[in-house]
């Protein structure tokens, strides 16, 4: 039971992080390698700010989301958009988008490592966690908030993509960008909006993780980046609901490995899942019938 709860907490943070990546990749075709750095740097900036003023938990989370959105927006505006505009072909654009993301990621990492001397940093907040004990299971208020926020946003975003007009436009871009544009979808504006949402989710995930673990290392974004690949591939590219389930499955599988005492194999879980899923079910567990974005 305790393990189940831990899995849900871990999975919810994974989920918020992966949702942003899945959203940008599955719709506007941007595989953002700077997503991990956005996640880390949002928390880092909040850490700098809270060094001067103390904020409430909501204040911290809102600020982190806002900073994440700003970083993501800038990346799209200054790097990805120019690359897409100049690209000769889709495949050359894909490679350059990955490279651009890698380059962008190095910059906040360098700044954070320099300022903190690569030591973990913690956010100062007026929030204090309380721990409830229900039938031998320990549940902290932080875990509860993480799970509720993760599930609400996960389900909300899935429904929004499925039901709303913007969601339809985004799915249209994901299916056939040029035709969608011909039908009156404003591609660049929508891309900016998508990246802002993705960045905000990264910032929010970062803020919540900082509360959950009470500290964060500058390098923590990289590990999460690879895990996010696993979740997206697991769920199926373009399927938000799949990413939600993928996040909890991965968290569960990792937890299981730890319980079984196979701690050194934990990292192999995400890599192994990516590999096996791609091999036997490339469309993902919940993906549509065909691998589209080849």
């Amino acid at each position, binding site marked *: 039971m305790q393990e189940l709860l831990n899995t849900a907490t871990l999975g919810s943070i994974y989920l918020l992080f992966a949702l942003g990546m899945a959203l940008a990749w599955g719709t506007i075709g941007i595989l953002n390698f700077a997503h991990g750095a956005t996640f880390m740097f949002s928390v880092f900036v909040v850490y700098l700010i809270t060094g001067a003023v103390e904020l409430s938990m909501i204040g911290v989370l809102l600020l982190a989301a806002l900073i994440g959105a700003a970083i993501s927006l800038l990346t799209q505006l200054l790097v990805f958009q120019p690359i897409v505009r100049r690209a000769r072909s889709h495949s050359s654009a894909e490679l350059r988008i990955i490279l651009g993301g890698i380059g*962008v990621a190095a910059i906040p*990492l360098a700044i954070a490592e320099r300022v903190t001397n690569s030591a973990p940093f913690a956010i100062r907040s007026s929030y204090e966690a309380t721990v409830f004990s229900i039938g031998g299971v320990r549940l902290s208020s932080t875990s509860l908030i993480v799970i509720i926020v993760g599930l609400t946003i996960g389900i909300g975003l899935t429904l929004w993509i499925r039901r709303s007009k913007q969601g339809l436009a985004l799915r249209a871009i994901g299916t056939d960008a040029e035709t969608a544009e011909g039908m009156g979808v404003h591609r660049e504006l929508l891309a900016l909006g998508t990246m802002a949402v993705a960045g905000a989710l990264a910032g929010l995930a970062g803020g919540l993780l900082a509360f959950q673990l009470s500290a964060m290392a500058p390098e923590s974004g990289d590990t999460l980046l690879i895990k996010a690949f696993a979740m997206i591939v697991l769920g199926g590219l373009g399927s938000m609901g799949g990413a939600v389930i993928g996040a909890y499955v991965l968290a569960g599988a990792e937890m299981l490995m730890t319980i079984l005492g196979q701690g050194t194999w934990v990292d192999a879980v995400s890599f192994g899942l990516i590999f096996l899923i*791609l091999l036997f079910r490339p469309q993902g567990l919940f993906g549509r019938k065909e691998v589209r974005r080849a």
Partner: protein
Amino acid sequence: MTGWFASNVILIQTTLTTTLLALSLQIPIRLGVFSFAGIGAFGIGGYTAAIAMVHLGWPTYPAILLGVVVAAVATYILGVIVQRLSGLYLGMATLAFTLIISVLAVNGGSLTGGAAGLFGAVGTIDVPQILLIVVGVVLVVSYFETGSRGRRADAVREDPSLAAAMGIHVSRYRLMAFLASGAIGGLAGAITTLRRTAISPAEVNFGLIVLALTVIIVGGIGSWVGVLIGAVVFVWLPTWVAFVGQWEDLIYGTIVVLAAVFMPDGAHGVIKMLIRRLRVRISREPRTFETAALPSIRAVRDRPDSRGLVRDGVDS
């Protein structure tokens, strides 16, 4: 000259091995196969060579050869397994393959030395020998980049179905890309390990993939020349920007971003364009600029295939 060589011997050796490492990604990507398996091959080659020396007591060159063979075979088998994947999906699968190598190394017990790594593989290979090997590899690679062989490769990358219709065995090309990438990656790993006398799981990580990828894309994916330019830039950059101290990574990131946005064909593409402009200016006659990719495909298309037969279906 000898003084310069002696004081920079590590940088020179790193440039050479980085060139090999990056070539192991450039070869498949040039054929349109987006594979990171070469980096995994680096780990396999490094570990195999170290195990052969430490546990079996093999001398340097047989150990390296074993590393190359094992890495090439492993990567080839991977190529067969992931044959139906393409694009970013193939990238993901090979990324997973590469990262699994280091987890296997961590859990390999006394064979791989676990998380601490394997020590004591004291190879006798020196820098001039490495140079000779790299020159040999580059000669072979450039043989496959020139003339009709190069144009066939361009066709396989730009339009696989057209290439298949021209009688090019596309799936065989792709498997060969895996084999070559594995052999060269394994070579890079074996040489690096035996020079350093040790290898650890932490060396075969995401960072190594990122390094190789930035080297080839900033240098230019079109040819081995770009790979060499990229390797020189990224190995020597720290010594050039030593004055900025710890901000080195910031400079690195900025260079990578600028290259991604402004140099679609990498540094090699920029150099080629400058040379072409200079020639035009010298000859002073108006000449039309040709784009790099289109004429090569046209050349393949207009050239009747010697066998004149469509032998292979579209790669599925």
